[in-house]
């Protein structure tokens, strides 16, 4: 999936996360993480994001994460929304998401 524009999803409410994806053509994945539970879950969040990007075959993107204590499933949901918005596509692959 190719990111063609800025895609934003999520909120800054407690238990949620705001994710912004931007195009990064040919330059791979760049993850910027800011989290209220960074010390406890920083690694895990990066892992979840990384593996979800692979699942949706996103090779190049800048992913900015502002996490307010979201669960993994919330992070994936927000990331999916941001990615599809950023890719300007609506042919959702429900088997992979």
């Amino acid at each position, binding site marked *: 999936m190719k990111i063609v524009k800025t895609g934003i999803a999520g909120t800054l409410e407690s238990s949620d996360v705001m994710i912004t994806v931007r195009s990064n053509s040919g330059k791979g994945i760049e993850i910027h993480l800011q989290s209220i539970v960074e010390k406890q879950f920083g690694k895990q969040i990066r892992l979840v994001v990384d593996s979800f990007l692979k699942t949706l075959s996103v090779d190049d993107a800048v992913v900015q994460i502002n996490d*307010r204590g979201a669960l993994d499933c919330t992070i994936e949901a927000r990331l999916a929304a941001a990615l599809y918005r950023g890719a300007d596509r609506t042919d959702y692959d429900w088997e992979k998401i």
Partner: protein
Amino acid sequence: MTENELGRMIPKKIDHIGKLLPFEGAYAHTPLVKKEKGNRSLPKLNKLVDSIESVIVKSELKDGMTISFHHHFRNGDKILPMVMEVIAGMGIKDLTIAASSLTGAHNCLIQHIKNGVVKRLITSGIRGDLAEEISNGLMDIPVLFHSHGGRARGLETGQIKIDVAFLGVPSSDVYGNANGYTGKSACGSLGYARVDAKYADKVVLITDNIVEYPNTPFSIHQDQVDSIVVVDSVGDPEGITTGATRITKNPRDLLLAQLVSEVVVSSGYFENGFSIQTGSGGASVATTRFLREYMENRDIRARWALGGISGPMVKLHEDGFINRLLDVQSFDSEAIRSIGENRYHSEIDASYYASPLNKGCAVNKLNVVILSALEIDTSFNVNVITGSDGIIRGASGGHSDTAIGSGLSIIVAPLIRGRTATVIDSVKTVITPGSTIDVLVTDRGIAVNPRREEIKERLIKSGLPVYSIEDLKNKAEKIVGKPEPIKFKQKIVGLVEYRDGTIIDVIRQVQD
């Protein structure tokens, strides 16, 4: 034989009594008694000193001494910042501050610690930026954290020796009779300040409200007070209380409150004449609403409530559901009003409340207490002082005192907060040992300490959702995942003293 001032012959010594001191005149040994008897136009005898600076000079405060403050003005306190600024200006160094607790109003201490004015803190808790700085290694000597009962014990045994107590009071007369419920800065009970007034070498009252002598009823009295300073304002009313406590509308807190009251009602402790203490948290305060319904329906009345009193508890008292209130700290405007108005809403001091070594403290006679927790582990040990990131952000308060004193100690907390689990394998800092905790109530299930099998059976029989604490821990972990352990440095930044004076845990500096 010696001739005394009146010319009478007095023996120097009498067998079985000893040496006798001859009378030397009515005013010779009583410096505070006025000599101008009968002169009505003279200024009234008083202990007023014109400024904070003069009173500090008069108190003979020196480098390395211990001074104390109370936290009845909570986030509105102006006394500590005001006094510390003057002390710093006078160049006094290396002081120990023994405060009943420190709040968000005390961030000025960061500067005073950095400048060497303050070298040690003894307190129930620390919050805000000061707490964060201390967790990051601000001080060379670890902070000593005590419980409210533990502090009273420390003062009584001489472990904590206060040289000068600076006590803000909402009202005082010129001779040092003070109470907490009159004046624009009213804070209600002065329970924590009263032990300082009793045990400190020098007692300085600071007030913004001088009233006519005698200021009865009084909490701190003239025989304890050295000096009085009048200032414009001792505290910001907005910070002292946030008005009348309203029962929360937060659905999670209401759910927790409903469950807690069902636990109390089913526990076997809900009978005529019972006693209870609730905390100041939303869920804890809201239990009063649900308990009231049960008290009404089953015609049960409580004999007394202890604490930390707030409006909803006052309402139960005024409506006849609780006969007596024992109040060491008044949480809101309603409690402040009530302690001034209600004959059986009594002010108690920290020792009466919870000192483990006096001849009998109130927590010993408590039936039920409802307490909060930042973390609780599978051995029921409770942490109320360090957050999930390892940083200090709370206070020991009366937690460990009431937990051991009460017949039924209930911890109430959500199972998870955001992505942080409350029930974990091992708490970061133990404040209250699990052997004194009986029941944990969360929004996703209840756990009973195995040593209280009979309570567990009663709760199950009432249809309450009872799990093992390991089950609750696993449940939480399944939802949020397994966190990485927080990394600490070797340096100890805090010592946690149990109420008996032994050290129950240490707090280390966090790694960045």
